[in-house]
């Protein structure tokens, strides 16, 4: 029973990281209708910034994370301006390939800047543990902070999109860009803000991911990126609660598959579950089924 709980908690913790990354994917997809494959690499950049801030310049971890968020937010806006904005009216495949180009660029720039040698990431919250039930159940501080961060981000983001003016503009743009523009919404600025928020979240995810799994290499972001993308689709891409649900489920399934089925085949199990879910609900768990009009 306790081992089950242990697995469940580590699953939720991993799922929270996936959920934070998936939020970035899902928001960008919702508004720009593009699969931003470079998102995973923004995570990696965030983790590197955080790493250098903490271990080279010996800044306190909080400052490191804030710095990473700031750099990634700017990076997100710059990428959007330079690479995606000129392609607003281009076919979606062209945008996809450009995103892949940006992903290659970030990975190889990281390779040159920070060398391919793996870095050991110092946990941003220390190595402490909380022991429950006479030490039968141990929960590390990283896990607690990760889950708390995910919950806070979800609440803030939901409030942001539901109540603020910018949030409403974002929802309007994702529903109908043309109509939003006619209502006086600055669509380009709104898309930039979405990218900024998504990239800032990626920085947080990067710091948390590398605190839990401390090896940092230039390709650190790609597999979690793909998994989080899967999570976003799982929950229904474009939907913020869907990203949370998809991320959490994916994390839990992955850890359980590792624990009870097989370590090597865990990825296969995760993707198989995704396929089954999409067959039953073709638009994801919480996705809106859009009816085709003829």
């Amino acid at each position: 029973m306790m081992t089950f709980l242990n697995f469940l908690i580590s699953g939720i913790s991993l799922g929270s990281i996936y959920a934070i990354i998936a939020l970035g994917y899902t928001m960008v997809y919702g508004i720009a209708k593009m699969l931003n494959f470079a998102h995973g690499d923004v995570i990696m950049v965030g983790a590197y910034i955080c790493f250098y801030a903490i271990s080279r310049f010996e800044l306190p971890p909080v400052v490191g994370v804030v710095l990473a968020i700031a750099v990634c937010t700017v990076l997100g806006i710059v990428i959007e301006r330079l690479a995606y904005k000129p392609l607003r009216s281009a076919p979606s495949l062209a945008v996809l390939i450009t995103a892949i180009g940006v992903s290659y660029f970030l990975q190889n720039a990281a390779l040159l800047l920070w060398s391919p040698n793996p870095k050991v990431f110092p946990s941003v919250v220390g190595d402490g543990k909380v022991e429950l039930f006479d030490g039968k159940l141990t929960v590390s501080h990283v896990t607690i902070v990760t889950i708390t961060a995910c919950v806070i981000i979800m609440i803030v983001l939901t409030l942001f999109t539901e109540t603020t003016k910018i949030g409403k503009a974002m929802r309007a743009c994702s529903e109908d860009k043309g109509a939003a523009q006619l209502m006086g919404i600055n669509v380009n600025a709104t898309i930039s803000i979405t990218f900024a928020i998504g990239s800032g979240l990626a920085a947080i995810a990067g710091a948390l991911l590398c605190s839990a799994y401390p090896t940092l290499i230039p390709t650190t972001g790609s597999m979690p990126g793909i998994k989080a993308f899967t999570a976003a689709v799982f929950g229904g891409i474009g939907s913020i609660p869907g990203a949370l649900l998809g991320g959490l489920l994916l994390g839990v399934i992955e850890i359980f598959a590792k624990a009870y089925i097989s370590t090597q085949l865990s990825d296969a199990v995760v993707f198989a579950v995704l396929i089954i879910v999409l067959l039953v609900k073709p638009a994801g768990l919480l996705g809106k089924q859009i009816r085709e009009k003829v």
Partner: protein
Amino acid sequence: MKNIKWSKTTRKNFLTYGLVILAYVVMQILGGAGLVSSSLKGMLVPICAYVVMAVSLNLTVGVMGELSLGHAGFMSVGAFCGTSTAIILQDSISSAPLRLAISLVVAAIFAAIAGFLIGIPVLRLRGDYLAIVTLAFGEIIKSVFNNLYLGVDSRGLHISLLSDRTNLGEGGKLIIGGPMGIGGIQKISTFTAGFVLIIITLVVVFNLVNSRAGRAIMAIRDNRIAAESVGVNVTKYKMMAFVISASLAGAAGALFAMNYSTFVANKFDFNTSILVLVFVVLGGQGNMLGSIIAAAALTILPEALREYADYRMLVYAIILILVMLATNNPKLKSWMDRLKSSHKKVKEVA
């Protein structure tokens, strides 16, 4: 001389065949004269494999209009099945070209079966959801082959998953060794074989596209509902394109694998799928000649940039982004259109 009027597509198809044959002849002559550098010589078979991959993916993406992010999965199926066949037949068939041909056929058949099985769930979905499921299948195929053990001995074939439980008898040989992949491959892939495979691929794809089935597939791409309403069987024709695309990718995978003495399942991952997709998009969707040129050029490009060593992949990424930005620039596009129309006018006057 009788003036035969060929349609525009026929002319373009013959141009494609002609250019491929010309490239082959030129490479053979240069190779015979010893003018081909050894690094380029080593890349000839991979280029052929990537060309076949690009053309087959173009069938899915360009002609059928569905984005597939897991094409490397079929390449993987073909590589493992084809190479295993070649190793099993090593003693019974001594002629290398014949063995290669049989292996490629087996690879194509197995990849086609995989394509059919995957197509059943995949083709029910649409758009980005279809793309993500193909990605998922690609990853599943990679995981499975990473944990698959296949051995052969006097009692026949032995397969096990996760750990090596093949219990081979005396004289038995482990062919697929899980994460170690396949080792000890005889390098029987040749440039000529690659060339023949490209020609076969082009014949298959061009004939499919210009047939009744091909027109049905393109009708589905352009407007599924309209096609359905005039009685086109959507599932059947989509499945046809998908399975043919998968089997060609399988043959390409076997050709690619038998150019190396050893390979692992991780060679055919998401990045490989993306690489081939880049060829297709840069070459132009539905444009087979474009795919061929893009595949050949982009396989050589990183090698050609070798003198920049560490910077080459960075340069590659920048070129990729700039090309996408340039080809989709509205100003540049209208300028190109003007150029084309003025060119036409000149022709009409003449």
